[in-house]
């Protein structure tokens, strides 16, 4: 390598051929090609300085040197005079005058790479990779370049960008990465680094860790496996910016990531990662915050970012994961924001363990999965990132809001879909459809929940429609032959007060429900008192059945109480109609108008 002039080729390529250090450079001819032309035979050479090679043409006058055998493959020559030129859009050095230094040289010196490609790779020239230095087979075709604008470019453009490359290192945007690009470099910040995870299964076992990379165009996930974990885990630090190239672009596996990108990167042996000190152009984090009130608009499984104040912390709990059976740690926080709504956010594992919620911190949570338990909940995904009191405008304004209003505001939660009955009160004005009631699991706990709905009676169970009640205390009486005795009052009555205990099915356009109704509601639904109904049942069953039939297909506005009851090891949600009223069309119409107005088609 001492024989050849260092950087000679690079200088020629960059048009710095006139520099003093490039005076009479010595290069090696690593290939010769005969080109017959109209004017005679011309020789095209590939010349190398041991690091790079480029195309050269021997001037007609010098052709004799080849023919006489003075210049052969691997010969070393000294260039006395040359002219840079472009042939078919590619840079070619025309060798006007030269001197042969050494004709017979057994081997190619060094491992020169095509200077055209190398120029596009300036950002990744030094690598932290301790494995073999990047070797490229000398090729005469222009290989794909890293710049997105160079895709499908003509030869002419190649020439252009080759010159530009010395001024601008070509960095690809994360958004434009795709598996059809082989040479690219990204400049990205590690927005999140995961723990090292190990797995053992029948096929294999090993370890991995992953990072989320971020630049101004987008984000992508990158994973390192096994050996690469050792190499890269300490190198990549959260919040630092790196140049990365030569990683494998693969299709993203969405079930393991919340990042919005079709592809992800696999960091392998050949991947080059270099710390970048110029962090200027790379953003800190890309957030798309959703206000807590609006989380309702997102379906279960959606991934969102939130910013809010931690109002409550239910502490670190250890549970056995339903999916993997492994013990996991979790921490449930209650997060609020200025939309005056609160939502539960669950943290897991390391994030859960290390989180300190004292002082009502403002947090940003990126990559939260929306769940629908009790309305809406949030869970920080494994690729998600949690930051406490970050110095961003949204967080700062939230902190101000909390300090002034937030502490005293009462918040509505998602668990009851209804503003009006946070106290479980009887006056529930908000309407839900039956499907919504089931979907929101109203009555899923032992604490009763109330809702109003408009539904139609479709079936009434004809058996056991009423019970014999004590006229005084309404408790069930027993028939003792010539009277009815109430245990509680210790009195006997000639005839009991029958009270309805109806089991019926109601339906609306969305769903149907089995419900119970007691005397007050029963009277409305049947239209006759329970006493009369029982009378009819005993004496004229067919009339009774006909009467029941007439109750069907009538629509009412119903207030329903929902509550989970356990009976013989089975827990079910039981629905009871506590009020049934005929439809007030005017009121219903106004309600419909409200709903229509909200629709905004």
């Amino acid at each position, binding site marked *: 390598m001492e024989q050849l002039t260092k950087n000679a080729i690079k200088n020629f390529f960059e048009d710095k051929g006139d520099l003093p250090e490039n005076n009479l450079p010595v290069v090696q001819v690593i290939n010769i090609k005969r080109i017959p032309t109209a004017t005679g035979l011309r020789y095209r050479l590939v010349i190398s300085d041991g690091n790079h090679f480029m195309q050269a043409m021997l001037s007609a006058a010098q052709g004799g040197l080849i023919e006489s055998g003075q210049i052969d493959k691997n010969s070393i020559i000294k260039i006395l005079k040359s002219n840079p030129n472009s042939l078919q859009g590619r840079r070619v050095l025309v060798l006007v005058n030269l001197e042969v230094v050494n004709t017979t040289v057994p081997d190619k010196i060094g491992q020169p790479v095509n200077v055209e490609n190398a120029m596009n790779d300036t950002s990744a020239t030094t690598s932290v990779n301790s494995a073999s230095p990047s070797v490229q087979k000398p090729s005469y075709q222009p290989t794909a370049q890293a710049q997105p604008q160079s895709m499908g470019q003509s030869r002419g453009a190649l020439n252009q960008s080759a010159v530009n490359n010395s001024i601008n290192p070509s960095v690809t945007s994360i958004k434009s990465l795709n598996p059809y690009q082989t040479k690219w470099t990204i400049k990205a910040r590690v927005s999140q680094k995961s723990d090292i995870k190990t797995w053992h299964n029948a096929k294999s076992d090993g370890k991995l860790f992953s990072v989320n990379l971020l630049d101004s165009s987008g984000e992508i996930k990158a994973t390192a496996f096994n050996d690469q974990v050792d190499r890269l885990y300490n190198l990549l630090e959260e919040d630092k910016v790196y140049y990365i190239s030569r990683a494998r672009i693969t299709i993203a596996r969405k079930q393991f990531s919340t990042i919005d990108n079709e592809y992800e990167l696999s960091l392998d042996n050949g991947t080059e990662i270099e710390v970048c000190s110029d962090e200027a152009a790379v953003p800190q984090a890309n957030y798309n915050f959703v206000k807590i009130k609006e989380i309702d608009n997102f379906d279960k499984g959606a991934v969102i970012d939130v910013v809010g104040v931690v109002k409550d912390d239910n502490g670190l709990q250890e549970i056995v994961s339903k999916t993997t059976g492994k013990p996991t740690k979790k921490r449930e926080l209650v997060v609020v924001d200025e939309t005056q709504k609160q939502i539960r956010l669950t943290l897991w594992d390391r994030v859960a363990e290390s989180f300190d919620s004292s002082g009502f911190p403002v947090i940003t949570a990126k990559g939260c999965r929306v769940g629908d338990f009790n309305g809406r909940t949030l869970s920080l995904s494994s690729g998600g990132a949690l930051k406490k009191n970050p110095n961003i405008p949204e967080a700062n304004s939230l902190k101000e809001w909390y300090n002034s209003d937030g502490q005293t505001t009462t918040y509505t939660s998602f668990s009851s879909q209804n503003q009006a009955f946070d106290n479980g009160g009887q006056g529930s004005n908000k309407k839900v459809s039956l499907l919504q009631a089931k979907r929101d699991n109203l009555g899923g706990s032992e604490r009763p929940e109330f809702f109003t709905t408009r539904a139609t009676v479709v079936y009434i169970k004809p058996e056991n429609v009423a019970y014999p009640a004590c006229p005084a205390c309404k408790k069930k009486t027993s028939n003792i032959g010539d009277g009815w005795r109430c245990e509680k009052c210790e009195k006997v009555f000639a005839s009991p007060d029958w009270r309805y205990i109806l089991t019926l099915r109601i339906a609306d356009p969305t769903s149907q429900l089995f419900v119970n109704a007691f005397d007050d509601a029963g009277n409305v639904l049947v239209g006759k008192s329970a006493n009369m109904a029982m009378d009819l049942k005993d004496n004229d069953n067919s009339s009774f059945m006909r009467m029941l039939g007439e109750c069907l297909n009538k629509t009412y506005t119903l207030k329903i109480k929902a509550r989970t009851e356990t009976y013989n090891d089975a827990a079910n949600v039981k629905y009871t109609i506590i009020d049934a009223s005929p439809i007030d069309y*005017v009121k219903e*119409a*106004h309600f419909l*108008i409200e709903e*229509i107005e909200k629709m905004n*088609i």
Partner: protein
Amino acid sequence: MEKPTPRINSGLRQKYIDKTVRLTGKVVSFTGESALVESSDGGQIIIKTNRDTTWGTSYVELIGRVEKDFTFTEFSSINLGENIDLKLVDKVVEYGQKYPDLFE
């Protein structure tokens, strides 16, 4: 009626001159030949009544044609009783304009 008859109020008369429409409103006054009806947006419309029909209740729905002078010639009428919320009627008129596919 096979042809769709859009519901109108006094404000929409301009749009439906010479067209057959429906008008729901409150009877303000009535003579044999003409009547004054308050439509759902509060405007009053002069009706040229159809002598064959009888109006029984405070609220009526009329099917007829809007004339060039903005009076309304009645073809037929329906009695709607005493209890109509004209605000709701106006909403229907409004939605009928906004979502014509649903109503025509």
